[in-house]
């Protein structure tokens, strides 16, 4: 399994189809340069990051540099995914941005405690989603540096 993160690849873990639709559309409008892969629950997110079937082909399903993570998802929720990620030393370079409709204060802190790099509340309208898409593209894809896990290509 190749562990080389692809700088232009984002993995979106989101169970709500309408949110996925809006995010895809907003990112396209923001001129997103890379690919956006979508998983629909926490277990799928972990499966994708592990490179398990059906995600075992890293050419087809490249390792992302950024994970956009919803918190309320079936099977495994966002916190459980965060907990799993921090137990994988080879995923140290994966940046995790929580994107949720929750504004509960304890959720914010717990997400940071579990190793999320950022906590975002889903914007209320499409314009703001596009704006957020531009900032994610600019900050995380353009300026932020990524590296591969040691000993890997």
């Amino acid at each position, binding site marked *: 399994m190749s562990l080389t993160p692809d700088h232009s690849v984002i993995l979106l873990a989101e169970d709500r189809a309408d949110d996925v639709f809006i995010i895809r559309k907003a990112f396209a409008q923001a001129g997103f340069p890379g690919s956006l892969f979508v998983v629909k629950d926490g277990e799928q997110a972990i499966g994708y990051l592990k490179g398990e079937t059906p995600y075992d082909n890293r050419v087809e399903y490249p390792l992302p540099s950024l994970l956009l993570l919803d918190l309320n998802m079936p099977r495994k929720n966002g916190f459980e995914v965060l907990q799993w990620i921090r137990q994988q030393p080879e995923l140290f370079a994966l940046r995790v941005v929580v994107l949720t409709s929750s504004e509960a*204060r304890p959720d914010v802190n717990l997400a940071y*405690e579990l190793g999320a*790099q950022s906590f975002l509340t889903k914007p209320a309208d499409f314009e703001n989603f596009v704006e957020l898409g531009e900032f*994610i593209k*600019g*900050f995380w894809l353009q300026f932020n540096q990524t590296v591969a896990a040691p000993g890997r290509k």
Partner: protein
Amino acid sequence: MNRSFGILLAEDDENDVLLLKHAFNGAQVQNPLYTTRDGEETIDYLSGTGVFADRNEYPLPTLLILDLKMPKRTGMDVLQWLRKQPVLNCLPVVILSSSGHRHDIERAYRLGANAFVVKPSSNEERGELARYIKGFWLQFNQPPLVCTEGFEVAQKLHAEVDAPGCFL
């Protein structure tokens, strides 16, 4: 965006401080920018000791922009110290380094840096970075409670949630 949220810039190079201030002004960043000139001063600021004891004058920042090569204690030392502090440990940190050595990026990420940016070399690029820091970190990102509600509230909630602590 809450304009009272401050940014702490830990940078020993006077010139780099000026350039970044200029870029932030250009991007119309309204948030106050505080600066420290070495690692020790940065730790003093964050822990609110010595000359930084007055939190009204030197409030906890909502974002730390941290240079790596600094006198007394390095950026890595500051990061390592910060992540071990109760309550304060979740403060978002963007490393701003003159080099993008693979080894530095890996070490910074393993020590808990949120992001790692190589210092832009042109005014144009610096302006762009300022705009994205403003948009992403100051406008959209929700900082941890300690930044928004202060140390005591965050500490109380921290105890209730029984959180495991960042990067322990």
